[in-house]
């Protein structure tokens, strides 16, 4: 049987063999030999000036390394927000809704704030365009965590890019030469902008940045790995470069999630400014990379820049107040429950209004009827208010189920639904990774297995059991809700006779019920 991992190939560009790879920077040595196992997982692509490399909002699974030339990174979506200008009815409101720029309708705290994207540059709302040159890597978060592309990338001149799948990127990230180059590039090109883009650190002098340049380090964390733990001595300040960080604190009766931080956010100042111990546990939600500033540099910075110290203290103080309030609400706060249940991660939830649901299970039967008799929905799960969040795929923003699939068979299509490709090897890793138990392993008959398992007509009856035991007739495959994407609406919703089943966006649907964050 062929190795399934060898099946994964990028269908565009020129595949590179080990010899060609070994001539490229960062791929010398053992990396090139390791990559021989993944032919087609890294390709060289040539783009003419003006050609689009990737578009914002698209789902993908690759990262790009610029070998020659440069690209323009931009956000094409209009920079503005929809404001509804009142009106009596829905139609009137819709007619009067319009897009307003941030200058026309300024929002507190937005002015001049950089837009974090999946590249070693930030964009701004005023000028959402930047240029990346040879040696830059972009698309890491899409590649590692299957997030949608954050920006549109266009060739600024004729250029050559390496496009790679996650297994290649991970090998690259482990390469000391690549890490060193990444850090050097970061210090030389992106660090100033990154540090200054953090509102807390605005006002750092060039001289201090020069001093920091050789002191900061880039540190990577795997999903779930703790970056710092509550109670431990505070020894560093962190800026997030890639990924999402979960901040949680222990309280009597359990752990409460205080916040989720993303690229551009900073953490660790409370321990350094306070009593010297960490006040919360920060852990990587997905593949995280942080800029680590050691305690002594942090203290030098706060000593030299009183304005920054004042801002940090004010932030630390307000975070403490918020944490205290959160602790007081810990037993009853619905926001915490909302977060703990992972509902904020979901993009589409199947909820059942339990006050309408007559427990007739028509939704479950409809799901089974639509999917070859195997339901992908269980009418059980967590409750939030009067709603049951049914055990059915939530189409998470951060689909942890996709992390680690050895054959890349679980992926997101160009829309919300998550699909499991035919080449799933049934290892069950995605089912274990799904925090909500929404992926199930189902035995499916192997082609031709029935004939192989059946005893020959002439065989004596005693031989039959041994024959059946020896031949495996089924193979587990992962199944999950596909939102009935081929239909207008999910079958479970259409089949509910009591209008109790809905597919909803949790943020909008539960907004009134969770109150202000």
């Amino acid at each position, binding site marked *: 049987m062929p190795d399934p991992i060898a099946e994964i190939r990028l269908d565009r560009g020129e595949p590179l063999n080990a010899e060609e790879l070994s001539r490229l920077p960062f791929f010398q040595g053992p990396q090139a030999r390791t990559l021989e196992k993944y032919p087609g997982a890294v390709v060289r692509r040539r783009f003419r000036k003006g050609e689009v490399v990737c578009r914002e909002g698209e789902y993908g699974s690759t990262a790009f390394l610029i070998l020659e030339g440069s690209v323009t990174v931009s956000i094409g979506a209009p920079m503005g927000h929809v404001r509804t200008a009142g009106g009596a009815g829905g139609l009137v409101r819709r007619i009067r809704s319009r897009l307003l720029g941030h200058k026309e309708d300024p929002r507190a705290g937005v002015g001049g704030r950089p837009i974090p994207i999946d590249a070693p540059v930030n964009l701004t709302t005023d000028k959402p365009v930047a240029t990346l040159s040879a040696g830059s890597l972009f698309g890491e978060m899409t590649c590692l965590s299957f997030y949608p592309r954050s920006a549109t990338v266009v060739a600024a001149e004729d250029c050559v890019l390496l496009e790679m799948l996650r297994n290649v990127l991970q090998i690259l990230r482990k390469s000391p030469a690549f890490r060193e180059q990444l850090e050097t590039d970061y210090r030389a090109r992106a660090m100033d902008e990154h540090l200054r883009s953090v509102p807390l650190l605005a006002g750092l002098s060039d001289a201090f940045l020069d001093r920091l340049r050789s002191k900061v380090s880039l540190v990577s964390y795997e999903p779930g790995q703790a970056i710092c733990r509550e109670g431990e001595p505070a020894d560093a300040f962190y800026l997030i470069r890639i990924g999402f960080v979960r901040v949680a604190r222990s309280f009597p009766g359990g752990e409460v999630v205080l916040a989720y931080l993303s690229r551009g956010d900073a953490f660790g100042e409370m321990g350094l400014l306070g009593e010297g111990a960490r006040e919360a546990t920060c852990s990587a939600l997905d593949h995280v990379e942080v800029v680590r500033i050691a305690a002594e540099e942090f203290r030098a910075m706060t000593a030299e820049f009183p304005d920054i110290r004042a801002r940090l203290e004010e932030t630390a103080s307000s975070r403490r107040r918020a944490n205290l309030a959160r602790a007081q609400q810990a037993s009853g706060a619905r926001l915490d429950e909302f977060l703990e249940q992972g509902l904020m991660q979901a993009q589409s939830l199947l909820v059942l209004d*339990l*006050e*309408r*649901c*007559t*427990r*007739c299970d*028509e939704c479950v*039967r*409809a799901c089974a*009827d*639509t999917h070859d008799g195997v339901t992908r929905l*269980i*009418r*059980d799960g967590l*409750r939030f208010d*009067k709603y049951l969040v049914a055990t059915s795929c939530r189409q998470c923003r951060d689909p942890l189920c996709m992390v680690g699939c050895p054959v890349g068979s679980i992926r997101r299509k160009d829309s919300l639904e998550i699909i499991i490709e035919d080449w799933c090897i049934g290892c069950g890793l995605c089912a274990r990774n799904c925090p909500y138990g929404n992926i199930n392993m189902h035995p499916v008959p192997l082609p031709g297995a029935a004939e192989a398992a059946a005893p020959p007509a002439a065989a004596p009856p005693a031989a039959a059991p041994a024959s059946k035991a020896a031949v495996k007739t089924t193979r587990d495959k992962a199944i999950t809700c596909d939102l009935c994407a081929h*239909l*207008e609406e999910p*079958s479970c919703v*259409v*089949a*509910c*006779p*009591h*209008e109790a089943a809905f597919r909803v966006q949790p943020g909008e649907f539960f907004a009134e019920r969770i109150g202000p964050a």
Partner: protein
Amino acid sequence: MLATAGLAVAAAAAYGLASRSAPGGVTGDSAAGLAFGIAAAGLMMFEGLLAARKRKRAWRLGRAATWMRGHIWLGVLAVPLVLFHSGFHSGGAITTILLVLFGLVTLSGLFGLALQQVLPRVMTARVEMETVFEQIPQVVAQLRKEAAERAAKTGDPVIAKVHREAIEPFLLSDGGRAQRLGDAGRSEAMFAELKRLVPLAHHETLADLAHICEERRQLALQARLHRWLHIWLLVHVPVSYALLLLVAAHAVMTLLY
């Protein structure tokens, strides 16, 4: 609802006019009566289609909720039409049986509708530990196992005796109020009393056992409510089929004879 009310008013007006013009009033074999009968039979056939719609869940034949609304409101509309068709008389044996069956179907449907408005709210409010109905026996088996393990782990003779003589029989039963532990108040009092009899170190186990009993009580309540939610269908569905058959027979006999 408005459409149903409007159609019912229109039907009533038509019945009033027909009654005035016919000296003996509207009867089933009069033109107006026949029209009412055909309309009522049509509605009954539509009512019967809900079952077919439910069997073809994967087909896109409109939302089941729309069908259900139609089933309810057109079913309600059928009541005045049937009465206008019969001219408020029961007639012969078959038509009397028809009226009785129709009454049974209508009343059982309305009863079921009322239950479906009330019981899901009760279940949501009072059964926090609800599980899938078919899974209740498995969950109870798990509760029994957990209770036995916790009681044995203490090695305390009082807890062992209470488990053997009260908790295990309660978990094995239907969880109803006939059992001492089936009543939340009495259960609480029993566990409070037990706390005074066993060492402090075992109070946590007692709390676990009390929680297990509470879960069993909730599952028992869920089972009762679930049965009430669906038991009316045992009358509504078969009587509906019988009604449809008799309506067909009634129509054939009327047309032939």
